[in-house]
């Protein structure tokens, strides 16, 4: 892209962020979104070997639950897609087995959330299993999907017009997302998503700002939002380079 682009954060936390990107085409914005969902590799349990399972759920049900637990994903380059990390779990009833009971063979790969109940065990029930976690992409299984509820909206600009006729009832004007006002970004939640709260008694016109998108990104805890977005963009770049090399004469 020849145009200059610009990124500005509206909201920024470890696992959740909203940011504005200017100067990208709708196609590229959608490309980033899709890469965040399907093309960023994350760690997840893929194979489980049960030593003992006398709980009320079947082996395969527990294996699915273990697979869905998010694991922290090591920095890029530490692991390749063929490497495995072994995690083990051993809980004896009466107790509840939590994701935090998984013991990992690698400090870089740990359960991101410790409080996910895996199975409730009654008296004399026991769960002992060994699991292999692998690096894979959201394309192959939703458990490898690092980005959750990733989406974007156009940045919107509000033009304030004339006064509403005196005796006319004013209708609510609902807008969701972020609006731009004199270069300042205002999340619509500040005025309850209703423009008549912000500009009472005024006619308003809302229009999209061309090539400006407000992304909303959350992660499942595998990495921070920053990591997710940069890895998604890196994956687009890597594929673009690959394509360029492939079509060269």
């Amino acid at each position, binding site marked *: 892209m020849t145009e200059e682009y610009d990124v500005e954060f509206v909201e920024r936390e470890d696992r959740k962020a909203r940011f504005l990107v200017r100067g990208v085409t709708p196609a590229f914005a959608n490309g980033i979104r899709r890469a965040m969902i399907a093309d960023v590799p994350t760690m997840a349990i893929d194979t489980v070997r049960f030593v003992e399972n006398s709980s*009320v759920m079947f082996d395969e049900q527990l294996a699915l639950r273990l697979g869905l637990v998010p694991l922290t994903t090591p920095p890029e380059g530490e692991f390749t897609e063929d490497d495995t990390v072994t995690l083990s779990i051993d809980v004896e009833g009466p107790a509840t087995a939590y994701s935090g009971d998984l013991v990992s063979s690698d400090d870089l790969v740990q359960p991101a959330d*410790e409080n996910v*109940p*895996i199975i409730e065990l009654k008296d004399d029930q026991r769960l002992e299993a060994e699991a292999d976690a692998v690096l894979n992409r959201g394309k192959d299984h939703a458990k490898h999907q690092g980005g959750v509820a990733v989406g974007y909206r156009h940045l919107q600009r509000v033009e304030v017009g004339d006064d509403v006729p005196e005796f006319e009832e004013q209708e609510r004007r609902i807008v969701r997302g972020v609006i731009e006002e004199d270069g300042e970004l205002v999340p619509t939640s500040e005025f309850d998503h209703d423009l008549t709260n912000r500009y009472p008694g005024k006619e308003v016109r809302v229009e999209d700002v061309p090539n400006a998108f407000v992304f909303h990104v959350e992660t499942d805890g595998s990495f921070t939002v920053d990591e997710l977005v940069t890895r998604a963009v890196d994956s687009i770049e890597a594929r673009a380079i690959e394509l360029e090399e492939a079509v060269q004469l």
Partner: protein
Amino acid sequence: MMVPVRCFTCGNVVGEHWEEFKARARDGDEDPAEVLDDLGVERYCCRRMLVSHTDLVDVVSPYQ
């Protein structure tokens, strides 16, 4: 049977909030909507996962 680990629709991890939700809204007398807001379960797809869940382990365990 056990609470789903993730939301079926968006993939957010909801399982980790179950025990607190259960203690405060089911067994306690707090308003479920407020508890969910407090836990940061915002979207209605994730909220229904917790609101509509029933633990069945106690029901099936006698039939092992």
